[in-house]
């Protein structure tokens, strides 16, 4: 909170406990328009829980969430999504039996308020078609639009996972381990893909793959036991003994 720039997403003092376990402890972070920030931390640090608190899947015990300067703390997950908060999931969360095009259509039509239309077929809507084509280019699925999602390779399904969120044209995109389970080649494709997205899109990325963190993020936030323990550039994170200790675990010290 050093400067007074306009934040796209802001969490102020978010706290959440499950019984005696503090999964989020006074978490405060800001994301500017176009900022790419990685959240790293060991397993169980509360990264996905933080996403669930930001998207409204879980209600915080204390704290405020602001999207584009507006308080969204009391809004349902779907209302937050309609205001421009998109997310992808750590495990593929797709529509079985539908084609890539049909899946992307669902996302685009909801975002454009066309899910309410009783009579018009979004399949013949020009605005939706343009969005789908653009999204397919971003996520490298232009040639797979009419394939059923079940027929896609794992890497392509990961790309669709991100594409579903992108077809809604969010202001802020929360990506939960976009390269989870991916081969090194597919990880490279994902990195390229993320860097090709519009520069005004703000992204918060949970990631374990350090190549992706260094390649895609301008800022790194390190979470441990639900608490932010480090914030800085990827270079600063790399140089920090604190980050090394947390991330590599205690055995790192013994061998140092």
């Amino acid at each position, binding site marked *: 909170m050093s400067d007074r720039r306009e934040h796209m997403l802001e969490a102020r003092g978010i706290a959440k406990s499950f019984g005696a376990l503090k999964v989020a402890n006074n978490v405060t972070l800001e994301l500017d328009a176009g900022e790419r920030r990685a959240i790293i931390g060991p397993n169980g640090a509360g990264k996905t829980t933080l996403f669930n608190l930001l*998207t409204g899947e879980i209600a915080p015990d204390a704290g405020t969430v602001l999207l584009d300067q507006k308080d969204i703390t009391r809004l*349902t*997950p*779907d*209302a937050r*999504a*309609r205001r421009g908060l998109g*997310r992808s*999931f750590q495990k593929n*969360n*797709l*529509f*079985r*039996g*539908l084609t890539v095009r*049909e899946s992307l*259509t*669902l*996302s685009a*039509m*909801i*975002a454009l308020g*066309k*899910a*309410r*239309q*009783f*009579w*018009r*077929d*979004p*399949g013949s809507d020009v605005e939706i078609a343009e969005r789908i084509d653009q999204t397919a280019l971003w996520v490298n699925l232009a040639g797979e639009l009419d394939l059923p999602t079940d027929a896609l390779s794992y890497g392509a399904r990961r790309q669709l996972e991100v594409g*579903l*969120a992108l077809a*809604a044209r969010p202001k802020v995109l929360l990506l939960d381990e976009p390269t989870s389970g991916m081969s090194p080649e597919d990880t490279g494709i994902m990195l390229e893909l993320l860097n090709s997205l519009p520069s005004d899109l703000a992204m918060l990325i949970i990631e374990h793959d350090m190549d992706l963190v260094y390649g895609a993020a301008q800022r790194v936030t390190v979470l441990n036991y639900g608490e932010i323990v480090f914030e800085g550039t990827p270079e600063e994170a790399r140089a920090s003994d604190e980050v090394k200790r947390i991330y590599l675990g205690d055995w790192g010290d013994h061998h140092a």
Partner: protein
Amino acid sequence: MLRLDGLRLVLAIVLFAGGCGYAFTSDFFGKELLAEIAIFAILAMSLDFLAGFAGMVSLGHAAFYGAGAYIYALLSIWQDWGAPMAMLAATLFCGGAGWVIGAVTSRTQGIFFIMATLAFGQMAYVYVFENRAIGGDDGMSGVPRLDLSGIGIDLNDPSIFACFLVVMAGLVFVLFVWLLRSGFGRALVGMHRNEARMRALGLPLIRYKAAAFAVAGAVAGFAGTLGAQHSMFVSPDYLHWTNSGLVLVIVILGGLESLIGPALGAAVVIALKHEISTHTEHWAFFVGLFLIVAVLAGGKGLYGLLASVRDWAAAKRQPGGGDA
């Protein structure tokens, strides 16, 4: 979403043309059977919309059917409303009731949703059964039919009335094809496939579930107004949950999420029911056997069976694809 492929279109045309043809060539009993099939086809399509496409398996469908029938009967007998206005009012009422009940029951999931719809349905049944003012368990007779004599159509002629019902079933089919391709219909199918993702994409789930229930309720109510006109009599039996069960059996036998399958299922089950009940009163036993076979054979129903025959034939025609 619904893909109106060749098989669906062919089946729809065959059922429609067959129904219209049968209306004018069958004996009196055949026409009665056809009328019943057409009404059950409408009910089954509306339940497939709700259960098959939107994924909300309801056991309260007969309550909407009965409510539509009673409201039509009451408005036309007591209030002297014209049949078109009475049909419209009954349909809209059932849509509104569907909205409210859908909004309440949609907060539950799975088996609890089924039980909640069953409970609502039985509440409606008991209310009608106990209410002497609307005939109680005796029901009410003297329900008039729509008068289309102004355009030269005599609905008191059994052939013409049966054909009229087949046309209504055809219109309901077209309505659902249209609706399932719309943004609304696609949203329901998406919700059925992955509710959590649809919410994460911004869909307010309860509102869409309530709307789906409203549409299905309105169409079931509309079927009720036709049922009341067909038998010219309404009774609490219309609302009984065993009717809801029968419609669900028809939908599953015909093929969930296929729209035309349940219409075909209505023809097969109602015809079987009458055929078997001339020999034994335990017709439900044989329909049950048939259902078990259908479920064990993949659960895709008659439509699924026809679709696999189509795919098999297509693979055989394609050189090199026959052994796949």
